[in-house]
């Protein structure tokens, strides 16, 4: 199966019925997308599929042939963090961090369509992502800060 992952063409075999999440983690060695609920409830596995935010645990890998997948690993170069990543760090929005890649990918999708979201819009847009550590307050701050940094 051929597809584009984080800007690079990839050619790999997906197992029967394999999810995009498992394909990314196990076949392509991209473990940044996380496996927390594996039924689309927690958003830890969020990726962009042709620019659309999806839970990669709910997407069949085989359905991604010839598509463009972007994971959290695409956001930073070795030296420089993406402004959303930097904002999560600065705000203290990371504790155990297991939900963080999913939140960052979801926040990127939000800011791409709504560069200056309100509190309510951030809460609504990120309500598909569960964080068990922070209580969300610092994540709210981080998304606002990222919006400001990009403006």
């Amino acid at each position, binding site marked *: 199966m051929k597809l584009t992952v984080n800007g690079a063409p990839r050619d790999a075999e997906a197992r029967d019925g394999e999810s995009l999440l498992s394909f990314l*983690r196990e076949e392509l*060695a*991209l*473990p*940044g*997308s*996380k*496996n*927390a*609920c*594996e*039924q689309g*409830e*927690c958003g*830890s596995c969020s990726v962009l599929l042709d620019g659309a935010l999806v839970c990669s645990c709910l997407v069949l890998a085989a359905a991604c042939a010839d598509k463009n997948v972007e*994971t*959290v*690993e695409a*956001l*930073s170069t070795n030296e420089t*963090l993406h402004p959303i*990543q*930097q904002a*999560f*760090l*600065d*705000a*203290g929005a*990371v*504790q*155990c*961090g*297991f*939900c*963080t*890649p999913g939140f*960052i990918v979801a926040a990127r999708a939000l800011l791409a369509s709504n560069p200056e979201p309100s*509190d*309510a819009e*951030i*809460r*609504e847009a*990120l*309500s*598909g*992502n*569960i*964080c*068990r*550590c*922070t*209580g*969300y*307050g*610092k*994540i*709210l701050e981080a998304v606002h800060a990222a919006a400001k940094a990009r403006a």
Partner: protein
Amino acid sequence: MTLTRPRVRGIVGESIIRPDGPPKVKGEFEYASDLWQDGMLHGATLRSPHAHARIVAIDTAKARALPGVRAVLTHADLPTGQLFGLMTSDQSPLARTKVRFIGDPVALVAADDERTARDACKLITVTYETLPPITDPIAALQPDAAPIHDSGNVIDAVRLVHGDPRASADVVVEGEYEVGMQDQAALGPEAGLAIPDDDGGVTLHIATQWLHEDLRQIAPCLGLPEEKVRLVMSGVGGAFGAREDVTLQVHACLLAIATKRPVRMTYGREESFYGHVHRHPARLFYAHGATKTGELAFVHATIVLDGGAYASSSPAVIANAACFAAGPYKVPNAEVWSVGAYTNNPPTGAMRGFGAVQTCFAYEAQMDKLAATLGMDPVALRMKNALADGDLIITSQPVAGSEPVSEVIRRANALPLPADGRASALELPGGAGNLTLGEGVVRGVGFAAGFKNVCYSHGFDDSCDARVRLERDADGPIAYVHTAAAEVGQGVVTVQLQIARTELGLERVVVLNADTNIGSSGSSSASRQTWMAGSAVKAACDLVNAELDLRAHDRGIPRDRIDALLDTPVEQRVTYRHTPTEPLTAATQNHGHVAFLFAAHRASVDVDLGTGLVKVVQVATAQDVGKAINPVAVIGQLEGGIAQGLGLAVMEEVILKDGQVKNASFTDYLLPTFLDMPPVVTDIIEHPHPDAPYGAKGVGEPPTISSTPAIVAAIRAATGRELNRVPVRPDDIVFGTVARSDWAVVPGTDPRTATRR
């Protein structure tokens, strides 16, 4: 000449970026479920489908014959008859004669891939002879109940007698309360990688809260000396108590030793619900007596905790429930029975708040009842009875060192209330469900305070080792800090970094990964790791500084010429112990605790009386932390703990029917989302404890203790309903459902003498 030192950044008291933050935001941080080694096998667990049954026979032939299967293990393959358990060894790594809950591990498979391992589990035939399950903890405690373990069904029974429990009072209020089973729901699933070593031993990479306690339990179950079992901390995706117990540790090692290959085990979410312990469900029976003017006269309480099939840390949870049963108030007379039962429900153990959560829900409801009976303001009643310096808690231990209870209550209540209106209909109960446009929605405000011990209690030898090495490399001096303290997300690595920077006056500090190459740090639990690891690192730095002073003196070199002093490295290692505590006594009247943590919460809620849906609008909190080492992380603990308290108040429950978990998924076990969590207003109080490092007492648990009762009090204020059970369900609000056990229990009496209603 004046020498000025460059200012060291990132010291105690600053909000700094956590060192594990950059890899976490990049997706590069390696969690236990990301562990990978070429050629590794995948392990899977077969679990009991019965709550209580005898194992008659196990046939593994078909599983062994499946291509790709490398090992199938049952109790017959265990190297020893050793049992394991956190406080009581009562569980076999694989069930031998009996299974005691739905989920009890029975067999293991290692295979070339995960799917084959799981398929092979389905090919194992276990013949069971089912036994009647006991799922009501009060029934389990009765003398005529069939024993689930040979030792009987009483895990532990703690009686507490303080003053004269028969003292009279002008007014008495009674109540029965129930707390459902809460799940820690850490997002990172249980996972580990076991690698066999050439010496016949094994190295286990594992996400855990307490490496050395795991080692103590694992090695004997493998039939190996502790030297042959090495543990390395892997990335932990949240813990909240659930990683204090052994889950797959022994299993992964057994499979690695049997196959002589690396074996990885990772639970999925459903298995995680079966694989780890939960918070103890509780039945609580209370009577509070007071004078006409609102001074507490007595508290009588009977607390029954459902320990499930195995004891885990139940004895300590039971003791905690007894000690903190009356809240942070002056109570001259008390009688408490706190009893834990074995049942055929899933095992329960540690979860944030550890016994203090269950009782706080009950005693704070009682305080509100008392205030209503007396016609007093609920906050004023709490202020009137707040513990002050030197006052005794009901164990006769005085609060001393740091005890700002009335200040915590006053400042939480003084925080600004939320605005009356709502910005949009999305903020109404039901949110985007559009169930109301505001009609039938009532605002309520509730208040609660709570307290708990920090560090381990009742004579436990609680210690933490730390090693600090200061050396010189091409870029100048650098310090390495090593402890076994588990970073579970709470930020203890950052705390150690900040303390070492502060004490050594040096910014280049590296905190090494935790492992068993150093002595125990104890558990990342009981809100203790800032106190314990913080004290140990600080003490080791003190010794390093003393050696530098000595070198400077001996050599006649100025102390600040650090490069010249570090021709050889300075390394110091300490074992820190807190002030010893007294063991439990017959009437639980002793100095059993190191120190106490206090918090108060005020919740504002909107309730739709028509649908019974609740929207928490704001939570305000004041908490005494002694000293905020990293203020942004402290706020993170407060907000995150409140989210878990909110979950217990209105949505989170492991629903059981005849011992079967009915909602083992995040689709059915409801966790607070961004839309459920309101803004939190915090007031951090820094009242230093003289024995704690920089006065920093600990942070993690109080946010979960009184947030739940504050939210329920707010719902009561809005609805007038009794609401004696959490989580509060819409039915309880719409129909006024009240939880009643099948048992008549006189508060303050032994539940083993209860009678059926």
